Each structure stands twice: as structure tokens, then as C-alpha cells.
């Protein structure tokens, strides 16, 4: 119930933000035509606000949200850090340690599987993409 009210309010805010700020800023004003650049975005923004109001007025009784937030945030953080490092050092240097860290956090301790994930998979990817397809790795 509470979740629905909060989510609904967030949607209404998003709709308002789009209508009064983002769309006028990020979509051009055009003086002719039936479907102008701003037409559909405005319709979407209004729909979002209506859905939000609907959720606030008619909340359904479901216990939401259910997720393991801290752990998910930790994994997401590792992936984002991995991407940042990849842009500097490339996949070949960042991929294997990233895989190793992910597996260790997930609780894997057996050396064979750790090697398979941190060495085997990146090597297989490298052979397929860089050698066989001649495409650049990230």
C-alpha cells in the first residue's frame, strides 16, 4: 500500500518534470505538421502522471519491494568500476580480475572453477572475437 503511494508520487513527479522542464529543454519547437517532436513525449508524460495518480488512489496490497539491495548495489558497483577500468586498460586486463572478484564475492572458493571463470571464459571470448572475427574487444 505504502509502496504504491510512493511509486505513484514518483511517477507524477517524473511526469511533471518532463512536461515543465525536460521536454521544453530537450525537444525542438516545430511550427507545422501533425506529429511534432514534442507531441508524443507530452502524451507520454501525461500518461505517466495519470498512472501515478491511479496507483496512489487505488493501491494494490502487495508487499513490495523485495530485493537484496546492498548486495545488488555491490555487484552493480563492481560492474561499473569494471567498465571505468576497461575504458583505460581494455577488456584483456580488466575482464579476468573482474570475473575473479565477482566469483569470490559470490562465495566460490574452488580453484578449478575460479580458474575456469577468470581465465577460461575470457580466453575463449578473446579467441572467438579478436582472433576468429577480427573485431576489437572493449
Amino acid at each position, binding site marked *: 500500500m505504502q509502496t504504491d503511494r510512493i511509486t505513484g508520487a514518483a511517477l507524477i513527479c517524473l511526469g511533471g518534470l518532463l512536461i515543465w522542464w525536460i521536454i521544453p529543454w*530537450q*525537444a525542438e519547437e516545430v511550427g507545422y505538421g501533425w506529429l511534432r*517532436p514534442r507531441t*508524443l513525449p507530452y502524451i507520454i508524460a501525461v500518461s505517466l502522471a495519470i498512472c501515478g495518480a*491511479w*496507483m496512489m488512489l487505488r493501491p494494490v496490497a502487495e508487499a513490495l519491494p523485495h530485493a537484496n539491495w546492498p548486495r545488488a548495489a555491490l555487484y552493480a558497483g563492481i560492474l561499473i568500476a569494471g567498465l571505468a577500468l576497461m575504458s583505460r586498460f581494455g577488456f584483456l586486463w580488466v575482464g579476468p580480475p573482474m570475473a575473479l572478484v565477482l566469483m569470490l564475492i559470490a*562465495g566460490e572458493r574452488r580453484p578449478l572453477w575460479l580458474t575456469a571463470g577468470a581465465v577460461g571464459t575470457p580466453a575463449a571470448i578473446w579467441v572467438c572475437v579478436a582472433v576468429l572475427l577480427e573485431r576489437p574487444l572493449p
Partner: protein
Amino acid sequence: MLDTATILAGLGDAFQPVTLLYVLAGVIMGQFVGAVPGIGPVMATAIAIPFTFGMDPLAGIGFLVGINKGGLVGGAIPAVLINTPGTPDAAATALDGYPMAQQGKPLKATKMALYSSVTGDTFSDIVLITVSAPLAILALRMGPVEVLGLMLLAFAVIASLMGASIARGLAAAALGLLAAMVGTDPEHATPRLIFGNFEVYDGLPLAAVAIGMLAISELLARLARTRSAQAATIDIPRDQLPEDRRVSFAEYWACRFTVLRGAVIGTLIGALPGIGSTAAAFMSYASAKQVSPDRASFGRGNIHGIAAAESANSAVMGANMIPMLTLGIPGSVSAALIVSAFMIHGVQPGPFLFEQQGRLIYGLFGAMILANIMNLLVGQVGMRLWVRVITAPESFVLTSALLLCFVGVSLAAGGLFGIGVMLAFAVLGFVMTAFGFSVVVFIIAFFLGPRFEISLSQTLALLNGDPLCLLDYPFGLAMILAAPVLAVWLARRRA
């Protein structure tokens, strides 16, 4: 009409050892690559085109057809086994395929996907070979208004099917459409919602958004939930009964109407350029669920759910060739890539294609049927291999899948920028799922968004400000009016 000799000569060409080998190679590559998240049939075809330059036309085009069809089957594998569809059309397969795999029956689920996919594909190929001309003329009559109506219908079905409530379904669809607004607007070609990023001038990269929303967010949730990373990803009981490892003919036969309905829906939608397999898969799934006496079991590993989704999304591919071969108008991106291969081999698609290149076209038909048979054979072996992979520990499978997504998206969607988009949408997808919004609805709205806006723009131009003009388009009008009615009806039935 072509004489029988040409037809037979063409079909005979397809059975030349060289062609056979290339089709087989294409199917194997397609099934393998299609199973990698991020690289769907379209991407695989695009990568393969340069390799076909040196081949003779039929071998090259057969190779591409093999990749395309193999990719369709391959796409179902990660969806069923780890609930991470690489493309949204496989998302419908995951709805029942993944629960069935979790029950310890991954091989049964993937085999059902394989059989219904090949059946749907073969059905639409037969339609293509026999009655493509009249169907193409019918498809030509379906203009912007009808396409718009069909899309509204698809939105209505999907939004009322998925997510925790109707309001959430609609909100997810609106958010997906909003993401589709990023890029260049269709009527005036002005940049929109790009916040200074020239990379998204032609829209957010499809593959990055789809993989982020559907695969990475699921992988994040799975990893976050993991308590015993050393356990197998999917636990197959050692003393499993043989019937849980295979699909018996009786089970397949019990799904015949579901598969046939899916094949018909897929063929009809595929004959219209621009709508695509995702809408077909979900409409087929929805209709199978509605007619089922046991609706509650859908989403919990019902074999009909897999059959409905896979038969429809595969039937779309064959039917996409109908407008291409009869009118020279490609019905999808993969069909457009095959057109481009045709042109480089000196074959100009158009209304004369059958008369000028009859032998080649019948060779192509032969190759398509061959590819279906090979899909079945290669799939028998391939599915076993993939199911073996999935008994590896969860930590290994999920991590490897993450690495593959990184590389696949970087290939398909422009390098590191694509990966960044993927991660951003993964976080959004995770939050949306946690709050009960369906990421599938979001993705479908996002995929259909550009076509939806352009159809809306064309429809408004045709009406020219006079709503009464809609009466000139009875089919389109009927579908537009039916959409909200259907949504309400489906919602009532669900409640």
C-alpha cells in the same frame, strides 16, 4: 508461373554438397552465437555478410539463412536456462521455459522450444513458398492505420498481461516509449532528449537496452540472492525419469493447436513489414493462455507457454521474406541484410525476382527447408551441450554470462558507450522489477516505439485533421477500438 524444371533445378541446387555444408555451418554458428546474450540473429547475419562475398550466390545466401534460423533457436537457450533472454522475443519463451528448467527439466524445456520453433518456422516457410503472392498483396493493403491499430492491440495485450497491476503495466509501457523517444524524431528529423550525446542521435542502442534490462538486471538479482554459489545453476535430479528429459510425441501432439495458432499469428504479423517477432510471441502466448482450461499454470512451467511463444516468433522470420521476395520490400532488419547480400551478389530484388532468378529463389526455398531440418538435428546435440553447461556452479555461469554480455553489447552497440547504456538500464530494470513494473513491457514498448510514432505520424497525415476519414480504414479502426476493450477484458479475467 515458373515451369517445373526450373523449380526442380533450384531445389536440386540446394542439395549440392557445397550448399548443404554452408547451410549446416550457418545453422551451427547461428545456434551457438544466438545463445550468446547480445548477439542475436541480426548481429550474427551482419557479421557474416562479408564472409559470403567469395561464395557463389546460393551458398552465400544459404549460409546467411542458416545463421538466421540457427540464431532463432539459439536465442531461446539462455532465456530458458538462466532467464536472461538476449532479445525480447525470447522473453515470452522465458515466461514458462525458465520455471520448467528450475523444476529440474531444462532439457525438456529447451527441446520443446526447439520443436515448436522449427514447426512454426516450417509452417511459415511453406506459406512463403506456396501462397506468398496473395499474402503479399494483402499485406500491401495494410497501411499505416492498420499497422497502428495492430500495435495498439499488441500494447493492450502485453500491458494487461504482465506486471503487478494494470497501472504498472501502462506506466512501464509509457517509460519504454519515453526511452524510444531518444534520438531523431521521425517527422521533422530533429534531435530529441539526447542531452548532448551524439552517440544516441539514431536512438539508444537496442541491444544495449535489451540486454541491460532483460539479462543484466536478472543476473544482478540472481547474484544478489545467491547463498550457495557452489551449487549447480540448475539442479537436475540424478534419478530423473526419461520422460522429464525429452518431449514425447504425445506431449508435442497435445500442443498442436497451440503451435499452429502461434504459427498463424507469427506468419500474419511477419508478412507485415515492421512489427516484428516480439509482438507476435506475446500475442500468441496471451491467446494460448486465454483458451487454456488451466490458466493459472501459465508462468509456472506450462509446456504450452513455450510452444506458443517459440512457434510464433520463429514463424515471423519466414514470413518476413514474403514482402521481400514478392515485392522487393524487406520486412525486417534481417531481411534487409539478406537483401543487401542479394544486391552484392548482383541480384536486384523486385517484382521480377521470381521470373529472372527463379532458380535461385527455389534454391533459397530449398535451403530454408534444409536449414529447418538441420536446426532440428544440430539442436538435439546443442541442447544437450548447453544443458551440461548449466549444471556448472551458479557463480561460474552467471559471471561468464556477464562477461559475454559486456563483449556482445560492445560488438553490437558501439563499444564502451554501449556497455555504459547497458549498465544504466540494468540498474533501471532491477529497480523496476523490485517495484513490480514489468521490464518486458518496457522493452516491447521501447522496441515498437519508433515504428509506433512513425505509424502515428503517417496516420495523422492521412487523416489530415478529419477523424471521420478513419471510416475509410474499417480494419484499422476496428483494431484501434478493440485495443482498450481487450485490455479491460483481459484485466478483468486476470483479477
